[in-house]
């Protein structure tokens, strides 16, 4: 077969989110390369829902995602560690409210 082998000629990266079933939220499952959104959706269908993993797919250009930086981890998340009053544990549960 005379099929020229090509590299990834600049296809952008897409992040894939799949909802496993109604009522659950979309969960990040991985990423893939595709030339545009429509084909990204098809590729996601073929790569990530082969075994009935989902009922709905989102694809998002990876470059559209703004992520927190590992360098900022302390400033972002550390201050929450000693603020126990943020947890709803400081009031009595009324009698008879077993599943509050």
């Amino acid at each position: 077969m005379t099929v020229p082998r090509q590299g990834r000629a600049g296809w952008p990266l897409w992040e894939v989110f799949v909802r496993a079933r109604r009522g659950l939220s979309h969960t990040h499952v991985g990423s893939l390369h595709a030339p545009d959104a429509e084909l990204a959706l098809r590729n996601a269908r073929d790569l990530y829902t082969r075994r009935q993993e989902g009922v709905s797919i989102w694809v998002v250009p990876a470059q559209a995602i703004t992520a927190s930086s590992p360098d900022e981890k302390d400033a972002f998340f550390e201050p929450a560690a000693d603020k126990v009053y943020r947890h709803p544990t400081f009031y009595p549960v009324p009698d008879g409210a077993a599943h509050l």
Partner: protein
Amino acid sequence: MEYLLGLGDDALVAAQRLGEWVTVAPELEEDVALANIALDQLGAARLLLGYAGELEGAGRDEDALAYLRSDREYRNCLLVELPNGDFATTMAKLLLLSAYQLPLYAALSVGADERLAAIAGKARKEVAYHLDHASLWTVRLGDGTEESHRRMQAAVDELWPYTVELFAADPAAPVDPAGLRSAFLANVEPVLETATLDRPADGWGPDGGRAGLHTEHLSYLLAEMQVLHRAHPGARW
């Protein structure tokens, strides 16, 4: 039985051709997509050939029919046995095949033969996706760069005559292929237009596949597909 062989052999040979792209497709994602489509076609082929073997009643199962018939005994259309060529040719083949299989399976799925209707009902959903996949690529290549447009147009022009065979009248068949052509054109023509491709003129087309008269390409394909089974009968993974 002959009719079922035609359906099953179309799917089997198409699957084998698509499988040739595994590990050499232009992109990893496309590799998986083509393998998925090939396995859909193979799944339909197994059901159809299995049923054909039962109807024949000579004790031949799907493997006997797939691996132990020679090219003259194959009933597939010529379109599916043609070499893959470049990616545009493969997509044009898939477009034409799925645009034909979709109305065919749709008609069979409400037919009188319940077993065949069940097989067609399952295959119809899969083929709808094959048509979608081929349509998207045809549009992107046709309405893409100058080079991709040239190749896509060349592929459609080269393969168009092979669609004549698909719709040769067969009044004895469960679904007369002649009646499917308008649905086929309704699937293909809008795609070609969106892809800025010229719809080739209708004319003479090569045929003979349904009667076992094939191009030389089928023999090579069958040799590769059958060699293991013929050398080691009944071999299993």
